């Protein structure tokens, strides 16, 4: 890493245009929260409608910016070409003000076509600055401006110093974006994205659609899905594919239903032999009004069949972890509530329904009955969110504890079948002869575990809901997902066809960057009961 072109101690004005020296008698310095904002794509907006945009910006200054600043005890330093610079005594007030401005802008934009939206990018930094009657100078101002520069349109980015001050005072969610090197500042600045609603954090990584657009999209998606599913079902009847083999009813029966279904279509649950714990998962009754345009009962019935085969897992208490690897220690007792988990990892065919609905961005290659692979955690999250939406069932990724409990199938041994490696039990490098190294085998190629679950160990890595923690010190004991705000890496389970037998163990755990795809990473889904 090169350390070149760093200039420290030099004092710049906010836009870097002027390099005014401080007054000779010694400048007035003070600690202040600096808020820098600008309009994203301002020149594009001006090109589109110069007078209209200008009028709207001026009106927003008068109606929104100035009153909001005053309300939060902020001082407007100056308007820049397309933004403004403000100073606050309190970082809490500065961030509050930023959130209010962003939320008000959402309201103002919704009635307008997308290309006319005015979106601010806002950066807030707490720093020592030089104050003059009509301007402020210093590193602190520059950093606020740089934060604003890297913020996404409509977002508020704050520096680590601001975050430390506000984290326990403002009920927001904060997404850590790591340390960023900013132009002309020597030390990296830690950057946090402020999400006004804590619930927004889990959605932070996926695309955000305007609500109106989403509704329209959902209707068309479901219409497409309906047609697609009919096609798929025809194919499947021909293929006798394993993943949806239990699908009850014919498409004609459900699509010809003239009124809302009195009872929802049963989930495609197949009871494997010799597995006493398996039962049909609970159904969420569908309560859609008759005149509802979206989704119609028939399409919801079809959508419900998009849920892969699920197996109900009874609740219980088990010893999670092992002494075999530092990451699996300490072994600790965890109580699991009843839940359902997909019988197989999600297949390429199942994934493609999400791609067809334009809800999953990753377009896979590979055979239809193979496990979906090359996913990031964010991709996996897109799938469960889409499936929840179209089926109106709270589908999610399993928690790490649920995954291990399900993988053990009630056993305590090293592998679910015993302490010794056995052939024909799992797909891994060194598990079987012959070994196919280029791709995973189709799902369900080996024996199911005592819970009737296939591929719980080997064949394909499976993302779970939990953030990565290097061991179980401080892990929850209620089976919930162990998550925190600062989560750049998530847990993967199961090992893949590329890993050695050690990774097939139900307690084996590993992790990977949340946003990064890798060819051996897939998923299975779960649902609380």
């Amino acid at each position, binding site marked *: 890493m090169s350390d070149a072109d760093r200039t420290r101690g030099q004092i710049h004005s906010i836009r870097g245009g002027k390099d005014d020296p401080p007054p000779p008698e010694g400048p007035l310095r003070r600690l202040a929260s600096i808020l820098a904002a600008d309009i994203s794509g301002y020149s594009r907006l001006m090109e589109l409608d110069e007078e209209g945009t200008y009028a709207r910006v001026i009106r927003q200054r008068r109606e929104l910016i100035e009153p909001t600043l005053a309300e939060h005890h902020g001082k407007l330093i100056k308007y820049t070409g397309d933004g403004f610079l403000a100073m606050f005594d309190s970082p809490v007030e500065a961030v509050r003000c930023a959130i209010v401005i962003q939320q008000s802008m959402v309201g103002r934009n919704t009635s307008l076509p997308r290309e006319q939206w005015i979106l601010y990018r806002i950066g807030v930094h707490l720093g020592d600055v030089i104050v003059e009657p009509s301007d402020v100078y210093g590193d602190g101002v520059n950093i606020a401006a740089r934060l604003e520069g890297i913020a996404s349109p409509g977002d508020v980015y704050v520096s680590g110093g601001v975050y430390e001050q506000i984290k326990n005072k403002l009920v927001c969610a904060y997404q850590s974006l790591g340390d960023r090197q900013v132009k002309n500042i020597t030390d990296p600045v830690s950057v946090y994205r402020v999400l006004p609603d804590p619930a927004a954090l889990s959605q932070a990584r996926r695309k955000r659609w305007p609500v109106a657009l989403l509704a329209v999209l959902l209707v068309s998606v479901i219409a497409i899905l309906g047609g697609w599913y009919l096609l798929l079902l025809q194919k499947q009847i021909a293929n006798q594919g394993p993943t949806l083999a239990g699908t009850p009813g014919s498409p004609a029966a459900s699509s010809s239903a003239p009124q809302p279904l009195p009872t929802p279509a049963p989930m495609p649950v197949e009871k494997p032999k010799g597995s006493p714990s398996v039962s049909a998962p609970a159904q969420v009754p569908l309560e859609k009004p008759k005149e509802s345009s979206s989704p119609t009962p028939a399409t919801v019935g079809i959508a419900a069949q998009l849920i892969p085969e699920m197996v109900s897992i009874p609740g219980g208490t088990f010893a999670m972890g092992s002494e075999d690897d530092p990451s699996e220690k300490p072994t600790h007792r965890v109580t699991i509530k009843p839940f359902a988990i997909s019988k197989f990892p999600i297949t390429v065919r199942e994934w493609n329904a999400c791609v067809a609905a334009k809800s999953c961005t990753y377009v896979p290659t590979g055979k239809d009955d193979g496990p979906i692979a090359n996913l990031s955690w964010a991709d996996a999250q897109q799938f469960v969110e889409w499936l929840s939406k179209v089926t109106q069932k709270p589908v999610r990724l399993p928690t790490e504890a649920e995954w291990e409990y399900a993988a053990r199938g009630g056993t305590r041994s090293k592998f679910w079948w015993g302490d010794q490696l056995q052939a024909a039990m799992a797909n891994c490098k060194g598990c079987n002869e012959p070994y196919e190294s280029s791709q995973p085998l189709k799902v369900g190629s080996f024996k199911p575990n005592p819970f009737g679950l296939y591929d719980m160990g080997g064949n394909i890595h499976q993302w779970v809901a939990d953030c990565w923690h290097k061991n179980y010190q401080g892990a929850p004991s209620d089976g919930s997902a162990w998550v925190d705000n600062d989560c750049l890496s998530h847990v993967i389970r199961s090992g*893949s066809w*590329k890993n050695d037998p050690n*990774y097939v163990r139900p307690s084996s755990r*590993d992790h*990977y960057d949340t946003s*990064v*795809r890798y*060819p*051996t990473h897939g998923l299975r889904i779960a649902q609380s009961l």
Partner: protein
Amino acid sequence: MKNTRAILAAALLTGLPVAAYSQGTTAPADAFLYIIWPPDGTTVKGAFWCRFGLRNMGVTQAGSNAVNSGHHHLLIDVNEPLDPNEPIPQDKTHLHFGAGQTEARIELPPGKHTLQLVLGDARHYPFNPPVISKKITITIK
């Protein structure tokens, strides 16, 4: 520069049997990957920050096809040669830094360990020619 090339050549010869690379994205001939810290032969107490150095190429995120850029992989105690026609493996001895990290906190059990960096392309394949650091040996006290 001469020196750099010599080190690179040495690293290639010791680290990787040169085979046919059909998959790899091309890398500039003067690309130089090295471990800034710890130095070869160091004794370290407990966990440490391993810092990754790269010259004449850029670090980018996995999935990004930016020209002459890749992401780091740290190989710990790996003796098998890398297969240039396969993605760099992902397990506890092949650590991936696909978010574009240039350093990592490493915790290893006491004893002698080897560390080696390999640069991967957008799809985690080694480059052609492979961009790979000298393999260093450290001791954890």
